[in-house]
């Protein structure tokens, strides 16, 4: 086999792969970004909802009555 066609094949595969990266089906690896399941209780709304209760719980539990 001549060498040029191999290069061409590699190039074709590479461009195919690179093209795939741009598609919606492919996930880019972003280091340092959470990869796990979402936790509904971790949201801004959830935290806001419970913050008042948690504040008064701290006052009740930790101040010397």
């Amino acid at each position, binding site marked *: 086999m001549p060498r040029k066609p191999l290069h061409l094949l590699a190039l074709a595969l590479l461009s195919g792969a690179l093209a795939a990266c741009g598609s919606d089906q492919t996930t880019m690896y972003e*280091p*340092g*970004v*959470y*990869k*796990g*399941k*979402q*936790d*509904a*209780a*971790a*949201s*801004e709304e*959830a*935290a*806001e909802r*419970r*913050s008042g*209760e*948690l*504040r008064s*719980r*701290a*006052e009740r*539990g*930790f*101040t*010397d009555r």
Partner: protein
Amino acid sequence: MARMKFLCDAERCIECQACVTACKNEHEVPWGVNRRRVIVMNDGKPGEKAVSVACMHCTDAPCAAVCPVDCFYTTADGIVLHDKDLCIGCGYCFYACPFGAPQYPQQSAFGVRGKMDKCTFCAGGPEEVHSSAELTKYGTNRVEEGKLPLCAEMCSTKALLAGDGDIVADIYRKRIITRGGRPQTWGWEAAYGEGV
């Protein structure tokens, strides 16, 4: 919004281990895994001091920075949690953590063999709130019920404080004013990057 923090008042800690067993009780943490423990300095000598240590839920959590599978996340109220389904038990977070918080059960206890386990600030994990998956993998979710970590709530002398950082710091500052002396807030600065 409230920002959850722990603070252990070393002047009040009497090494009674209530925080340790409260945690065991609440989450049924298996034998050999200690999400919280009491550390004693100068044991048996004048100057003996103790402090209760667990995951401090750092502002800039070093564990998250080194995790090769990115299983850590921080809730909107500042609690650092992780997904045990992703965790590979590599131990990097143990090296990174200034408090030695991460724990690795040897056998199947919380989830699968070798997954890292640590204090959740009694806030469960990335599963449906109060589901049995959350309970068995991470323990109970008190925060969602408006309660704070049981270790602090049951502390014998109210040495261990937990909750919104502003309130915790406020309670502690009042004590310092009453009794005089310098604040000794073990780990606070390392965890939250600021003084009380």
